[in-house]
Structure formats: structure tokens, C-alpha cells
């Protein structure tokens, strides 16, 4: 029997990849190096694209392949390259200085995951069709969301906040793809375009902040008050 045809295997595979996405997210909280953070984001996006491809394969929904390919192209390759070039161009120090120290941040992320599971539990309807996939991955998606917010709050530098925002966006994508088995293609395309433009605009913004303040510390922006 062909292993790729068994839907139970597919479901397990998707849940496993979702769990790995979550592990990468926690690794990003724990990682201090900025470049490494960007690469972890790339890996996370690649896994996300693989999840989309697996869903397309097991649910016979060919239009999700487009979303999968777009995810890998845009988020796993293009965005990390853009961000790394930005890091090189503005010659910042490569160490992230979080507000809460790293071990505590990681434990907080674990707690946020727990919250996400509790939240996802309330959406769980056992009688609904294909509930288990939505149930597991929705929890992961919500945790990506919460941890993404936490990372944004926890970091001072503008560029690291951009990375956190992107992981948050990954969470939204995961939730969308797992609950609806793919939105209409035009919506997906719009979202990707949105992400790309957001990265470009934020890149320019970060560069300008750095030019005017000699720092990327967003708390310096308070000085703009008259």
C-alpha cells in the first residue's frame, strides 16, 4: 500500500509539521542572534509551505499548491534575503537584547502555548467533519499568534519587531489554511503581496529610523513628542 495515500498518515504528518513550526517559534524566542532569527523564520515559513502542500495533497485541493509555492518563494526565500540585506546595509550589532531575559521568555512562551490550547479547545466540535486537524493546528496557529505578539512587545529594536510581526502573520496563514482548507486564490495572492510590501515598507522605515536616531531602539521615537 502506498504510504502517501493513507489519510491517517497525512493527518499525523501535518500535525507533526505544525508542532515543529511551534518548536521553531520557541527557538526564535530563545535565539539571540538576529541573522539566525531571520533564518529560523525562513525555515518556519518553509515548513508552513510544506503543510500547505500536504493539505493540498490529502484533500485533493490543487489551488492550495499555488499558496504553498508562493509561501516558500516569498516567505522562505525572498523575505529572509531582503531582511538579511537590510541587516548588512545598516550595520547594526547582531545581538538581540530582549526586555525579559531569555529563559523567562521561553517559559512565558510555553505558558502562552498553553493558553492557546485552552482557547482552541473551546472551538473544538468533535462531531464536525475533519475536526481533529483543525483542532490541533488551530492551537498551534493561536500560539504562533500569541508568541509573535509577545516577541514584538519583548524586543526593543525595530528590525527584530518586524521579524516578530512576520511570525505572527505565519500564524494567521496557518489558521486560515487549516480551518478553511484554502481561501480563494485571489485572497491568498493579496495576502502575499501585502506581506511583501509590508516588508519593503518596514525595511525603508527601519532604515530611516536608523538614519535619524543612530539606533533602532523604538523607544527613542518618544523624543519626537513636542
Amino acid at each position, binding site marked *: 500500500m502506498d504510504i502517501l495515500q493513507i489519510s*491517517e*498518515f497525512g493527518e*499525523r*504528518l501535518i*500535525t*507533526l509539521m*505544525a*508542532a*515543529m513550526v*511551534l*518548536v521553531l517559534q*520557541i*527557538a526564535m524566542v*530563545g535565539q539571540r542572534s538576529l541573522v539566525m532569527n531571520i533564518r529560523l523564520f525562513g525555515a518556519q515559513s518553509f515548513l508552513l509551505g510544506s503543510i500547505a502542500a500536504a493539505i493540498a495533497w490529502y484533500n485533493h485541493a490543487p489551488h492550495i499548491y499555488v499558496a504553498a509555492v508562493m509561501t516558500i518563494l516569498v516567505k522562505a526565500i525572498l523575505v529572509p534575503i531582503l531582511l538579511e540585506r537590510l541587516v548588512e546595509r545598516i550595520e547594526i550589532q547582531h545581538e538581540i537584547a530582549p526586555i525579559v531575559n*531569555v*529563559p*523567562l521568555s*521561553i*517559559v512565558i*512562551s*510555553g505558558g502562552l*502555548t*498553553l493558553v492557546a*490550547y485552552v482557547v482552541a*479547545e473551546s472551538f473544538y466540535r468533535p462531531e464536525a467533519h475533519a475536526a481533529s486537524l483543525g483542532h*490541533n493546528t488551530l*492551537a498551534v496557529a493561536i500560539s504562533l499568534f500569541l508568541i509573535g505578539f509577545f516577541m514584538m512587545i519583548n524586543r526593543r529594536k525595530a528590525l527584530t519587531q518586524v521579524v516578530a510581526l512576520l511570525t505572527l502573520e505565519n500564524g494567521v496563514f496557518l489558521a486560515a489554511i487549516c480551518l478553511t482548507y484554502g481561501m480563494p486564490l485571489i485572497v491568498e495572492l493579496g495576502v502575499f503581496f501585502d506581506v511583501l510590501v509590508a516588508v519593503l515598507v518596514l525595511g525603508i522605515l527601519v532604515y530611516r529610523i536608523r538614519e535619524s536616531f543612530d539606533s533602532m531602539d523604538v523607544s527613542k521615537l518618544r523624543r519626537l513628542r513636542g
Partner: protein
Amino acid sequence: MIWAVIKVLVQTALLLLLAPLVSGLIKTAKARLQMRRGPGLLQTYRDIHKLLRKDMAIPTTASWLFHATPYVVFLATLLAGLMVPIVAADTPVGLFGGVLAVVYLLGLGRFFLALGGLDTGSSFGGLGASREMTIAALAEPTLMLAVFTVAIGAGSTTLAEMVRVAIGQQWRFLAPSQMLAFAALFLVLIAETGRIPVDNPATHLELTMIHEAMILEYSGPYLALIEWAASIKQLLLMTLLIDVFWPFGLPQVLSPTGFLAGLGWLVAKLALLSGGIVLVETANAKMRLFRVPELMAVAFTLGALALISTFLF
């Protein structure tokens, strides 16, 4: 009765003989990966043989603790080894609480090692002991969380039962809780065996030593016993990982043909896991001591998530 004795003897012999081989394999593979020739596969056996024939230099400040430590460490580790399934699912010795006993027998060994390090009053011994206990205190909760994750799935803390359940379930290794527990346990393995991001087993610089600093005063046969015990402990933790997460090919009861098959699978899986350790050791630099708690926090969170997700998925 005789059969039980034979099982104990076979497993003891396996532990004693296989452990230095695994250490040698990791050392050689690491050297090859770094484009060095490295020591041969049998170097660890030669080292132990050489140390066993040498005289000992015993510090004048040493008390009976210093003399007792090597034996306690060696025997505790060996006893723990007899409770882990190596070539067959049923273990020769099954004492109180299965895997819990294994974990805390290893803990007993570590406790005595720390005492032995402190006993001579040398500053490096105290330094090593304090560092070792710090890391152990961080690694132990993670180890217990990962073990409980698997034990809940199996409904028992006996290793034989855990392996039996694990063999019975298809696709189980794909479950997120198993995956997370595996990752957590792998980090614990690296911390407990003193591998590179945490400790450097080949270091000659006393200030960065952890395990080596603690046993700096030992020489001759005592050192041989401690080194041997350390390699058995490493084999033990690796086998624990293999038993719980990739148990396929492990026979239920010990029989001559099953023994060979089980041994073949075990060696293959040990080689695979050693390969993973070698890659981690080569790709990473040693962490600063104060960064180690961060790594252990990651491991702890993974373990906690694993335990939580057994209830949820």
C-alpha cells in the same frame, strides 16, 4: 532461576563491552568529520586497560569518600543499566518504579561524584562539582517531564511495558508529543553526557571544565572506573532514547536468534544517534556557562509542551 542469572550476565557483559565502543565511535566519527585522523575505534578500551594497570596518586586530604566514590558510581550506573531494555524488551532487573529508578540511580552516581570532587579540597574539584550539580539540577526536571510523557502514553513507568506499547502502535513516533519529548530528551542527553554546547569532553583547559574538573584528582584504576561508568551512562541514556522512540526490531523476550537481531538493530540505531551527536558537536561551539540555563530552559519548555500535548492531541 538460571535463566534469570544468564540474562543478568548477558546484559552486564553487553553494557561493559558496548559502552567504550560507542564512546570510541563518537570520537572517531567526530575526528573524521573535522578532517582529522582521530583515535581508532578501540581507543577507549585501550585507555581503560592502561589506567587499570597503573598506580594511583591519592591526595593526602582524601577521606573514605574519595575511595568509595568510584565503586558507588560504577555499580549504580551498572545497576541502572540492568533495568533498561537493551536487546530484549523484558529487562533482567525490574525494581521499584522502572524508569524512575534508572533516573535516580544515575542521580546517586552523580551525587557521589560531586562528593568525591569536593572531598579532596582542591579548588577545581569544588568548581567542577558545583557546575555539574547546577547543570544536573536544570536537566533533571526536563528528563522527568519527557519520561512522564512517554509513561502516560504507555500507562506504566516500567520500561519493558513502555517499549511493548511503543512497538504496538504504528505512526506513534509521528505524534507531536513524542517528537517534542524526543527533542527534550536529546538536549538532556547532550547536557548529561557533557557534550559540546554544554561541556567539552576533550578539553585541557581547567577553567572551562565541568565533568573533567570534578574528577581531576582521580588517577589509575579509580579513574578507569569513573570513565567506564561515564561511557556506560552515555550508552544507557542513548539506549533509553532509542527504546522509547524507535523501538522497532526489539524482540519481546531474550532468545539466541532474537539476541542477534536485537543487537544488530541496537548497533545500527546507536550509530545513527551517535551521528546526530557528532553533527551537533561539530556544528556548535561550547556555550558560556551562563548561557547553559537558556538551553536548558528550551529543553524544559519542550518537555512541558510534550507533557501538555499528550493530554490534548
